[in-house]
């Protein structure tokens, strides 16, 4: 008998059918993969299972009995635990304090729960220190805390919402080991992902959602990357390396012995040197916080140089962002919502942020709305931005469409150097393909791309050379043929340093 069963779950939001008669079941001791593009309805389904939303129709059965899950509290009581995509831990509290929250003893809750934590954690091969403050933990460690939390609460069904999106390959492997232990112990796991290889590595069955409906239900034996991707996207998808034969030109960017401090005044870049030629894609890999942000900030004129030189086409890089942009450096920032756009301003306004102050968008002190809207209209069409209108605030757009707005704006002036930071993070396959295609088109036109990413697939499929930032030092760059996923993973975690 299935442990958990969803029957004809339907959930509507204004104008959207988020879940359309979704039915699925999970048995004890199996890993069920739930796949789908962004907006396919995975998150809605998770929210319903965890009591954050109520379904409009349909029912949830636990061991054959209908259950009502109206709040996260109900879900926990029913034995459903969630390991959310972004940890929901109190970062200033210790691991034990976080785990005691809601279930600890009335007196000295954190102290008394510590032995229990260690017992549960060791039982499933999870290493955590109950006394460590959460802000000192890595993303992988925080995830372990979330898993232990669900187990401490007696979860029989464990939902893992895109758990590997923040992990290095080695950390992901460790997570899979834990998942296998849990499966062996008879737990039901729902693994949500859009990374197909991982799904194939761990899942017993796969359920694919598209536009709110279950479009595929495959046992592991019948699933393949191509088949799953086709189900997710609704058409066939190519997984070949995307880079054609590059036309590499002159040295465009020359970074010598560059050091810079982080906002917390620590030395974040230590003697970084590299060259980037026009037409070339240089990938920068690394675990977040190893100097990637600082490197991009220096190159976009946002951060001052402590030591060393940066030359763009033979002249020193200016030290303010507008002049850097004027010299042909486009910036696709890491935080696309807050840094890449002004969320409350319209699509047309966001598209004009780089160019509103000069002809043709303005004359003297006066803006020219007609020219402004005409340019925005053209850009929205060229980049296929799905927006209700040019006047819609960008905060109402999906992540993929926000990214297209940024690309349209940044790449409008035929940039020579494109700084692309996690350009496809959180985007679905369709939007990711478009971003990759646009970047490669620009290199064909002679632009150089500095691609900072934690997605090794992306780095390996686009880059000509890949460097790894580890604790502020640049390892490499290595020609892409000379590195593998595994080697990059080791370099990123200091395993080969």
């Amino acid at each position, binding site marked *: 008998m299935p442990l958990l069963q969803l029957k004809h779950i339907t959930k509507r939001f204004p104008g959207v059918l988020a879940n359309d008669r979704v039915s699925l079941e999970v048995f004890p001791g199996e890993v069920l993969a739930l796949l789908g593009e962004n907006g396919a309805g995975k998150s809605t389904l998770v929210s319903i299972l965890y009591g954050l939303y109520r379904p409009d129709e349909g029912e949830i059965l636990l061991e054959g009995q209908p259950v009502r899950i109206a709040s996260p*509290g109900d879900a926990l009581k029913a034995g459903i635990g969630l390991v959310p995509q972004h940890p929901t831990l*109190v970062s200033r509290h210790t691991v034990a304090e976080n785990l005691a929250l809601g279930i*600890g003893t009335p*007196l000295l809750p954190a102290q008394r729960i510590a032995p229990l934590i260690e017992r549960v954690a060791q039982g499933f091969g999870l290493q955590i220190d109950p006394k460590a403050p959460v802000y000192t933990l890595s993303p992988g460690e925080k995830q372990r805390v979330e898993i232990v939390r669900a187990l401490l609460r007696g979860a029989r069904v464990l939902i893992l919402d895109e758990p590997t999106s923040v992990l290095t390959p080695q950390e992901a492997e460790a997570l899979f080991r834990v998942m296998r232990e849990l499966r062996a112990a008879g737990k039901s796991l729902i693994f949500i992902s859009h990374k197909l290889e991982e799904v194939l590595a761990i899942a017993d069955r796969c359920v694919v959602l598209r536009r709110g409906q279950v479009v595929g239900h495959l046992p592991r034996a019948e699933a393949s990357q191509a088949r799953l991707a086709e189900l997710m996207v609704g058409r066939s998808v190519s997984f070949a390396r995307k880079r054609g034969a590059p036309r590499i030109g002159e040295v465009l960017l020359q970074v010598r012995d560059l050091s810079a401090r982080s906002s917390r005044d620590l030395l974040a870049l230590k003697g970084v040197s590299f060259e980037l030629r026009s037409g070339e894609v240089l990938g920068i890999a690394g675990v977040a916080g190893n100097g990637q942000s600082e490197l991009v900030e220096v190159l976009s004129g946002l951060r001052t140089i402590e030591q060393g030189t940066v030359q763009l086409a033979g002249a020193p890089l200016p030290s303010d962002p507008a002049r850097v942009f004027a010299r042909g450096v486009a910036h696709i920032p890491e935080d696309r919502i807050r840094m890449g756009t002004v969320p409350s301003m319209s699509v047309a306004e966001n598209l004009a942020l780089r160019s509103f102050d000069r002809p043709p968008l303005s004359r003297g002190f006066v803006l020219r709305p007609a020219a402004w809207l005409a340019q925005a209209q053209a850009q929205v069409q060229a980049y296929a931005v799905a927006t209700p209108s040019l006047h819609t605030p960008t905060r109402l757009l999906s992540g993929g469409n926000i990214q297209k707005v940024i690309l349209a704006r940044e790449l409008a002036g035929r940039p020579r150097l494109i700084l692309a930071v996690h350009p496809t993070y959180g985007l679905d396959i369709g939007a990711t393909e478009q971003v990759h295609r646009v970047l490669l088109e620009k290199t064909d036109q002679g632009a150089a791309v500095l691609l900072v990413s934690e997605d090794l697939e992306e780095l390996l499929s686009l880059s000509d050379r890949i460097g790894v930032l580890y604790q502020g030092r640049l390892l490499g760059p290595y020609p892409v043929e000379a590195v593998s996923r595994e080697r990059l993973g080791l370099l990123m975690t200091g395993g080969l340093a």
Partner: protein
Amino acid sequence: MEEVLNALARALSFGTPLLMACLGALLNERAGVVNLGVEGMMALGALAGFAVAFGSGVGDGSLWLAVLAAMLVGALAALVHAFVTITLQANQFVAGLSLTMLGLGAAGLLGKRFEGQPLFNQPPEWPFTLGAIALALLLGFILYGTRLGLTLRSVGENPAAADLLGLDVVGVRYAAVAAGGALAGLAGAYLSLVYRPSWTDGMTAGLGWIAVALVIFVGWSPLRAIFGAVFFGLLYYLQFRLQGQSAIPSEVFASLPYLLVILVLALSGLRGQQGNAPEALGKPYRRGER
């Protein structure tokens, strides 16, 4: 020597209402709600306490009844703040400021007939001072040694996390704000029943504001609040002391509480105390905004 002892005694008697009000504000801030209405709630508490004591003829029993009434009125006033900021999700700072203005105005208006009326029985100060210190120790223990305190702190740091675990964020915040108001009311009662004991319009004289600033100065720690309150009680005493003895106009001294507030905040800034603020302080919680 006698001068020093006297100064210390006065510092304690000024420090007592400061500590009470500070603990109250600290409590609701730890749950993530700023209430700038402390001054107003103190005034209402002071009036309610005085009115009950005056109306019932002061016996020992009615003193406690009066204190209870003051705490109740403080809590009720705070519940208005809770409703506006937690349920209606209005800006906490603006709502708190209105509460202060409302409280001061209403207390002034309703208290007209008590103005200048003496309350003959002056209770001793020390039980209140000791009580406030005990309260600080108790609050420290609750925050760090009990499940209740852990829940409260978590709600103030990361309400979304607490909500996901099935904890009642709204309920905890309401309770914390009401308790904070009760303590502000208690501080007011101390002024009108013990320290003075009489009612005058504007008798809170900026103490509520200092209490709010003290929360930041002591880095949201109830134990440090004891020392902070005594320290600022001492400064407050010195202000009165100098007022009688110098040629400086009294308006300058009247403005001192507010200068003290600025001083408190400046000192806190130097010590980097702002970094101790609960993560979700001042932010309304909406489920689903992840």
